[in-house]
């Protein structure tokens, strides 16, 4: 049974649930289904004064909408009345969200204000003929995007899901429960907007939506922001917060890069690279040595200051290998820097193609070698009986390129990540 009433300056009627609860009906002409706030009964009002029960929601799913049914509010200059609330779960039951149905008698369809994890979006029907779907999938997988042939703006696929209604209150102008059982929803996003397609019974309806800041919801429905659910994480439609740090970040990065270049120039000027040893010799057989090849002991050389050192060795290899055990000896202190390098170089012609592998040159970097007098020993070892020509070059105060690469990478890391993120989001929003 129902009664016509006037309330708060607009007309509504009262529909009675079988549990005795009174349900306000604001869209008298169209609403024919109702969900009871109290007992969770979804029923039809056939207009003959009787409520035809359809389904009762489980009480453990019961939820009280934050925006009460009947609340009036203004969004985008349009006045709405909250006429229903639906609690939805995806088919797997993992995700749960709420949707408020907003009614304006001058509009043909509801607007939907959806809330998930404290993030809000407003969705309504819109002519989206300018958008065309196209497949951007790869490796045999289909992945659709929507692209506007007017603006070129692209919406990327976000979710495809089915859902069921776990709880509902208010009034409906369609049999929401039945549709929910068969409906397939696809969401395409380009923050702060979303395009939603709902397919059921062979027909597809398209909707347009946008992100709504919680404070806008608060203002629109005169609800304290404290009552709204706390935002969890970042909403898929949420644009990055403009915190004004990108400008100073870019300027600081440029400043640091210039400083690094200047510092490196200054260091190179103060401690120029110096070729302290360059020698080559041919190996000979030595029966007195632990190695069948005679070792090389270089002349003494002096380092006038401490610094990095690069030792480059190479050997004339031809499908051969040689192991070089080396020692840099400080003649003042007896301190020894030992190192071993194996050089190998093989090449050939096979299957109509030339090939080669290995290297006949290697280098070693020594860190912070103190000043003093040094000599350099090389102990070659090879199973080959041929004579090898071995060259040794030692550069003191060598430029440590790995240090430069590291500091530049450290300086660029955060700005580059920020720029890529911002750019990606910008493309989504305005592309």
């Amino acid at each position, binding site marked *: 049974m129902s009664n016509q009433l006037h309330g708060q300056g607009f007309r509504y009627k009262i529909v009675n649930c079988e549990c005795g609860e009174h349900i306000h009906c604001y869209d008298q002409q169209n609403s024919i289904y109702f969900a009871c706030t109290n007992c969770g009964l979804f029923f039809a009002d056939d207009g003959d004064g009787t409520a035809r029960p359809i389904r009762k929601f489980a009480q453990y799913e019961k939820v009280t909408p934050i925006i009460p049914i009947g609340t009036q509010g203004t969004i985008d200059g349009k006045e709405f009345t909250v006429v229903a609330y639906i609690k939805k779960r995806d088919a797997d039951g993992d995700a749960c969200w709420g949707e408020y149905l907003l009614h304006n008698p001058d509009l043909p369809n509801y607007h939907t204000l959806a809330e998930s994890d404290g993030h809000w979006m407003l969705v309504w029907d819109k002519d989206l003929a300018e958008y065309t779907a196209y497949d951007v999938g790869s490796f045999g997988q289909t992945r659709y995007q929507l692209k506007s042939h007017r603006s070129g703006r692209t919406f990327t696929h976000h979710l495809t899901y089915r859902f069921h209604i776990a709880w509902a209150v208010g009034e409906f102008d369609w049999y929401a429960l039945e549709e929910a059982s068969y409906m397939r929803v696809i969401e395409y996003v380009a923050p702060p907007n979303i395009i939603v397609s709902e397919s059921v019974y062979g027909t597809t309806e398209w909707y347009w939506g946008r992100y709504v800041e919680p404070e806008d919801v608060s203002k629109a429905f005169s609800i304290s922001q404290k009552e709204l659910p706390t935002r969890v994480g970042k909403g898929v439609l949420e644009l990055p917060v403009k915190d004004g740090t990108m400008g100073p970040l870019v*300027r600081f990065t440029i400043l*640091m890069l210039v400083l690094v270049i200047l510092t490196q120039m200054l260091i190179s000027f103060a401690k120029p690279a110096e070729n302290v040893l360059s020698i080559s010799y041919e190996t000979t057989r030595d029966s007195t040595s632990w190695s069948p090849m005679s070792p090389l002991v270089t002349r003494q050389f002096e380092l006038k200051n401490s610094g990095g050192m690069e030792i480059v060795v190479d050997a004339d290899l031809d499908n051969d290998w040689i192991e070089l055990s080396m020692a840099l*000896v400080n003649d003042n202190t007896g301190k020894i820097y030992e190192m071993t390098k194996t050089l190998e170089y093989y090449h050939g012609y096979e299957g109509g193609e030339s090939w080669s592998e290995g290297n006949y040159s290697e280098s070693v970097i020594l860190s912070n070698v103190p000043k003093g007098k040094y000599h350099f020993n090389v102990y070659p070892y090879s199973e080959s009986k041929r004579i090898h020509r071995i060259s040794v070059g030692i550069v003191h105060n060598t430029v440590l390129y790995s240090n430069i690469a590291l500091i530049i990478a450290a300086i660029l890391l955060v700005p580059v990540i920020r720029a890529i993120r911002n750019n990606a989001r910008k493309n989504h929003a305005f592309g």
Partner: protein
Amino acid sequence: MNYFKDFDKILRYIIVIAVLYLVYAWAGITGTKITGDDNEVKETRDARQNRNNFYHK
């Protein structure tokens, strides 16, 4: 335009990068490879020193 405007908003980041820069500058002055010597290198004062001295003329 003040080049240093709003640098206070990224102060913690500036401190981190400044520390890294100082490490880089120290490494540059002393000739230290930040990631360490090539891993084949080791310092020793073992008996091989005698052999090295033996070969050194």
